[in-house]
C-alpha cells in the first residue's frame, strides 16, 4: 500500500466565526498575511512529505475557509518544481465546474513537464455547492463532466495534427498542447466515487478510483469497481487501482496521538458548516437520485461504526476510529487499524492520508508525518494482497 499526504489547507482561524464557512462566508474574515503564512506552512509540510518518501495529494475548493487551495493545479505547479520524487495527485480537478477543459489539459501538461512526469490526474465532478460559485449550469452536470473528460484525454494524448472540437457543451477551434505531457498517452487518471454505481464508471475505464471517508461503504464501492473492471478487462484489477481517504494521527505516545486526533477532528465539524440552501442545489442531482435519497430517509446515508450503529451526532475520536474515518494511535496501532480495514474493504493499494487536518499545528504535523513515513509506511508497503472475494470463499469451502 502506498501512502499519500493530503491537507485541505484550511484557514482555521476563521472557524471561530459563527455560521456557515462556505459559499457566502465574507472574505473580510480572512487576514491575507495569516493566510499566506498558513499556505507556506502547508507547502513546507508537503515538501517534508516528499523528503520522507510519501506521495502527495492536493485538492481544491472555492469560497471556503475550510480549504484555501483554490486551484489544484496551481498548488501542484509549485510542488512540481519543489519536490523531487513524490507522485503528485490532483484529486481533483472539478471538471463540471470548469469553463475550459483545454485550459485544464494545458495546466496538467505544464505541471507534468516541470515534474518530469509525476502528475496523477484526478478528474472529478466538483462538489454540488460550488456550482453556486462557478455558476456553471447545475443540470446535465455529468454529461458535461464526460465531455470535458473526453476532450482533455484527446488533447493530452494527441500525436496527430491539431484538431477542433464542437461538442454539446464545449467548442474549440483548435487544440495544441505546448508543452505536451511527459507521461504518454496522458498522466494516469483518477476518479472519486461514493457508490458502487459511480465506481463502475471508473472500473470500466481502468482508472484509479478513490473513495473519501466512506468507512464500511468503501467495500461496496470497491466491489462495484472490481466487477466493472473484470467485465471490461477480463482480469482482476491491481489493488493500486483503488484508494481510500482517511485521517491519520500517530505518535509514539498513545495519549499524544489521541490529543492530535482531537485537533484533526475539528475538520469534521468545519467541513459541513454551510447554509441549508446549499445542501442540495436545485437541478444538480437527477430527479431519480433525489427521489431515492428522499424515500430512503435521512438515516440511510449516515456513516456507521463497526457495530453497525450510525455514527452519533457528536462523534468521539473512538467513534471515528470505529467508523474507519480515522486511524489513530502508536505506529503499531495505526498499522493494525489500516491493515485490518484493508482486509475488511477487500484490498486497496493507496491510502490517501490526511496527515494534517483541522487545527493540527506545524510541529505536530511534522512529527506525525515523520513517524508515519518511518514506522508505518514501510510496513504498509509490504502488506500482502487481499485475495479476490470468490477465491477466499473457495478457500473456506
Amino acid at each position: 500500500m502506498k501512502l499519500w499526504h493530503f491537507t485541505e489547507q484550511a484557514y482555521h482561524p476563521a472557524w471561530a466565526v459563527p455560521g456557515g464557512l462556505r459559499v457566502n462566508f465574507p472574505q473580510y474574515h480572512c487576514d491575507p498575511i495569516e493566510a499566506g503564512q498558513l499556505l507556506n506552512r502547508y507547502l513546507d509540510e508537503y515538501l517534508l512529505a516528499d523528503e520522507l518518501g510519501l506521495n502527495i495529494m492536493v485538492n481544491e475548493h472555492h469560497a471556503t475557509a475550510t480549504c484555501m487551495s483554490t486551484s489544484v493545479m496551481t498548488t501542484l505547479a509549485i510542488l512540481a518544481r519543489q519536490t523531487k520524487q513524490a507522485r503528485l495527485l490532483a484529486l481533483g480537478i472539478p471538471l463540471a465546474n470548469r469553463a475550459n477543459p483545454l485550459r485544464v489539459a494545458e495546466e496538467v501538461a505544464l505541471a507534468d513537464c516541470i515534474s518530469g512526469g509525476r502528475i496523477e490526474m484526478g478528474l472529478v465532478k466538483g462538489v454540488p455547492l460550488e456550482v453556486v460559485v462557478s455558476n456553471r449550469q447545475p443540470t446535465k452536470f455529468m454529461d458535461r463532466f464526460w465531455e470535458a473528460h473526453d476532450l482533455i484525454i484527446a488533447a493530452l494524448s494527441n500525436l496527430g495534427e491539431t484538431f477542433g472540437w464542437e461538442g454539446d457543451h464545449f467548442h474549440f477551434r483548435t487544440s495544441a498542447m505546448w508543452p505536451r505531457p511527459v507521461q504518454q498517452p496522458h498522466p494516469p487518471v483518477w476518479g472519486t466515487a461514493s457508490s458502487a454505481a459511480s465506481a463502475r464508471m471508473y472500473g470500466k475505464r481502468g482508472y484509479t478510483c478513490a473513495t473519501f471517508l466512506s468507512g464500511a461503504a468503501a467495500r461496496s464501492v470497491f466491489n462495484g469497481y472490481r466487477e466493472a473492471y473484470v467485465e471490461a478487462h477480463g482480469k482482476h484489477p491491481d489493488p493500486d487501482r483503488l484508494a481510500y481517504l482517511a485521517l491519520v494521527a500517530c505518535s509514539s505516545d498513545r495519549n499524544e496521538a489521541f490529543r492530535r486526533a482531537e485537533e484533526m477532528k475539528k475538520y469534521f465539524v468545519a467541513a459541513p458548516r454551510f447554509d441549508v440552501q446549499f445542501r442540495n442545489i436545485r437541478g444538480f442531482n437527477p430527479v431519480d437520485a433525489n427521489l431515492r435519497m428522499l424515500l430512503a430517509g435521512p438515516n440511510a446515508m449516515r456513516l456507521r461504526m463497526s457495530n453497525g450503529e450510525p455514527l452519533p451526532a457528536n462523534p468521539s475520536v473512538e467513534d471515528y476510529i470505529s467508523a474507519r474515518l480515522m486511524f489513530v494511535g502508536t505506529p503499531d496501532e495505526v498499522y493494525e487499524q489500516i491493515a485490518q480495514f484493508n482486509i475488511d474493504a477487500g484490498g486497496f493499494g493507496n491510502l490517501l492520508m490526511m496527515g494534517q487536518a483541522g487545527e493540527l499545528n506545524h510541529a505536530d504535523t511534522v512529527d506525525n508525518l515523520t513517524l508515519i513515513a518511518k514506522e508505518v509506511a514501510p510496513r504498509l508497503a509490504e502488506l500482502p494482497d487481499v485475495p479476490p472475494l470468490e477465491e477466499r470463499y473457495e478457500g473456506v469451502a
Partner: protein
Amino acid sequence: MSTAELSCLNFGTLDTIDVRGTDIEIFRAGSGAPLLFLHGIDSLEGAAAGIRELAKSFEVIAPSHPGFGASELPSYMDRVDDMGYFYLDMLDVLGLDAPAIAGTSFGAWVACEMLTKEPARASALVLASPLGIKTAERREHWVTDIFMISSQELADRLQVGPAEGPPLSEMAEWQMRRALRADEALSLFGWTPYMCNPKLASRLHRITCPTIVIWGDRDAIAEPEYSLRWRDALPNARVELLAGAGHRSHFDKPAELAALVSQFVAGVAK
C-alpha cells in the same frame, strides 16, 4: 396522473397531448372564450386557486411546461426561447389561433417568448408578476435569487399568507417527483443568466396585442424597480397593482385577479 390524485384540480380534466412527439400534461376547466394559462415557478398545481376563478369566465387551457409536472422535456430544450417556439407549435395542435394568454411569474416569460416570435397568436395578453427581462444589472439585483434561499424561505416568500401543502420530505412519492422535476426545470431554464433572457426586453416591442401587467403590491420576489423596467419595455401596456397580493397573486387574490383579467379581456373583445 389524474385529477383524482391532483385533488386541487378536481374542477376540470387533466389530459396528455402530443406536441411534435413530446407528451404534455394539460388541464382544462370552465367554458367561454379560450384562455391559455401559463403557470409560474409554483407549477400547475400551485395555480389551482387562480385557475378555478378564471374558469368561471373562460375555457382555461393550462399546460404543465416541458420539464414540469408530468410533461416531457424535449432533449434539445434548454432555454425559454426554445419553449416559445414549442408553445407556438402547441397552439397549432390545440387548434387555437389567437386565444387570450395569461402567464404568471415564469409563465409570463414563456408568453412573451411566444408572442415576440409570432405577435398575432394572442388576442390579449395578461402578465402577472412577470419574470423574463433582465433581473439585475451588475451588483444591483431586483429579483430574489430563488437558488440562494432555502426551499422553506422560498415557500414563505412566494405569497403573503402561509404556504399550502406539506414539506418535500412528507409528500407522497408522485408529489415529490413533481416537485423535484419543477426544481430541475427551474434550474435548467432560470439558473443563469438568472431568470431572464437578456434579449427579451429589446424584443417586447413586437408584442402588439392589448396587454395588461399586474403586480401584487406585496411581491417579495420582484422589487418595484423591476416593475419599472417592465413598464419601460412595454410602454403601451396597462399596469395594475393588486392590493394585498404577493408574487403569487393568483393564490393571494384569486377572485380579484380573475375579475381584472375577465374585465380586461372583455374590454378588448368589444
